[in-house]
């Protein structure tokens, strides 16, 4: 027994050391030297030079305004990126006192949900280690397909216009810079999670993700009238006949170009944030069991590359759950305290899991995330989730979960896939 306990502790410390070592690893960027959050604002170098005079290049281009809409992208991505899988403990069971039978009675517990905490803890000296993979391929931004994002702004600045004769002001004043952006953004998140029951009612744990983020985009910007017909101003060219901007090129075949394009494709590998988690199962009643969970994240992931938060975050969570026969409803209520750059969020999960058989648990959840910063982007995110967990052999649990958007807010994927394998020791 002593040897067994010693081995358990050795496992735990080995995992902690491994995760800490991985946690301080650097991220690897494949592609350009820009960080991912600079890519959209950096299209055309951030501005496009437009002119009304072929022989004159303005000293400064038109600052492109659409980049600002993506400034809070890192915070918007947090909903998916911060979902470290919840430990389930294979073959979970509990002993409860039955007054009628005057003895303890053993009952098997469900394997729980992948996205919601339940009040039940692992139990003293019980540990779990899990590896989970999540794939997120984003499809829309505030309800618009990422393949067809369109942004418009005046093509000629007020300063430029004010220097023109009134007839030219009327001619060029309606010109618009219309940018059509085909954006791709995806995540591959590999979560390594370890949890350990210090006492029967207290668990501690840590999780670290190894993330791969890929972002590509192609932008075509045209100078148009509001009705879509070609505009009267055009893009300024440099002495070499190329677009007078840090990046991008004019569309082929135009002497007085009203069309320019630019693009990027970049991938980043790196560690995400380190999640430190504590859980206390503090109260039981016949109708509800209560626990509290506190999660501290340390910013080991590069926030500029959307791999983690900019600053440490702290998320306290109140957990209520109870098993009623085969069905176990659960409710999580919490608040993620984050810095201004990361955007604090209130969050909740409500759902239930059903022990379909001794080895199979089905679960369904609704998730809500509410931004503290009410800026009209990513304010309220609602997701639904379905999934299952199976305990096919011994102490292994395999699981799969699927999340679907229930509204359009923020940057969203039609489906988020998660798979998990967990070992209890």
């Amino acid at each position, binding site marked *: *027994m002593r040897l067994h306990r010693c081995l358990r502790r050795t496992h735990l410390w080995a995992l902690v050391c491994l995760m800490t070592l991985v946690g301080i690893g650097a991220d690897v960027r494949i592609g350009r030297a820009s960080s991912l959050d600079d890519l959209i604002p950096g299209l055309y170098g951030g501005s496009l030079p437009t002119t009304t005079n072929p022989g004159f290049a303005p000293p400064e281009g038109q600052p492109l305004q659409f980049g600002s809409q993506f400034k809070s992208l890192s915070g918007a991505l947090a909903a998916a990126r911060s979902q470290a899988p919840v430990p389930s403990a294979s*073959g979970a*069971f509990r*002993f409860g*006192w*039955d*007054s009628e*039978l*005057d*003895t*303890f*009675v*053993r009952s098997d517990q469900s394997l729980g949900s992948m996205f919601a905490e339940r009040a039940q803890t692992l*139990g*003293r*000296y*019980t540990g779990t280690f899990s590896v989970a993979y999540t794939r997120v391929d984003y499809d829309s931004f505030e309800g618009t397909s990422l393949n067809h994002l369109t942004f418009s702004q005046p093509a000629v600045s007020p300063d430029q216009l004010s220097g023109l004769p009134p007839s030219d002001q009327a001619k060029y004043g309606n010109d618009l810079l219309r940018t059509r952006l085909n954006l791709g953004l995806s995540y591959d998140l590999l979560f390594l999670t370890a949890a350990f029951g210090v006492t*029967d009612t207290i668990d501690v744990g840590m999780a670290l993700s190894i993330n791969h983020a890929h972002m590509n985009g192609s932008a075509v910007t045209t100078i148009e009238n509001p009705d879509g017909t070609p505009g009267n101003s055009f893009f300024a060219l440099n002495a070499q006949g190329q677009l007078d901007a840090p990046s991008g090129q004019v569309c082929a075949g135009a002497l007085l170009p009203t069309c320019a394009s630019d693009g990027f494709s970049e991938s980043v590998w790196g560690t995400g944030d380190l999640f430190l988690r504590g859980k206390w199962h503090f109260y039981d009643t016949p109708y509800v069991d209560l626990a509290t969970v506190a999660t501290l994240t340390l910013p080991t992931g590069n926030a500029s590359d959307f791999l983690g938060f900019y600053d440490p975050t702290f998320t306290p969570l109140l957990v209520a759950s109870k098993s009623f026969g085969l069905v176990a409803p659960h409710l999580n209520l919490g608040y993620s305290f984050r810095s201004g750059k990361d955007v604090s969020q209130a969050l909740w999960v409500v759902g239930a899991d059903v022990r379909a058989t001794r080895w199979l648990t089905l679960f369904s959840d609704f998730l809500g995330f509410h931004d503290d910063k009410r800026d009209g982007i990513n304010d309220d995110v609602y997701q639904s989730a379905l999934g299952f967990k199976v305990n096919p052999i011994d*102490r292994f649990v395999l699981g799969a979960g699927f999340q679907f958007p229930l509204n359009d807010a923020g940057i969203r994927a039609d489906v988020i896939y998660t798979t998990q394998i967990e070992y209890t020791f």
Partner: protein
Amino acid sequence: MLTRLRPPRRRRRRVGLIAAIVASAALASAQFADVGAVVDAVLESYRVALEQKDLDQLGVLYVNFSERQREALQQYLASADGLNVELSDVRIAPLGDGVAVSYTRRDTFVDRDSGKPQRLEVRLTKILVPDGTQWKIRGGS
């Protein structure tokens, strides 16, 4: 000062009354001490029977031991390898023809299916009553 004024006869009667009360209390205390010893013996038999997984002996300790209860106990004992039962913080109070016994029961064992060590604790109150020549468990929670 007041006692000195009382007549000697009345004083003797009072002393006798006090002596009777003290004697009665001492007798009750002695009887209760006996009951305490009996309760200790019953609890010890109960503890040993659990550790030895002796269902027949456990059955003998109950006034009524249903088949359902037997099955449940059998299942529990079968799942508990190396069962160690500890009864502590025993409190006894007279209740009708028997006594109410409160105690903390602490079971430690290894769950057979999972191999995980378990430590269960529960505070219980049982009613023990004389049943023929023995004291037995009649009910409780």
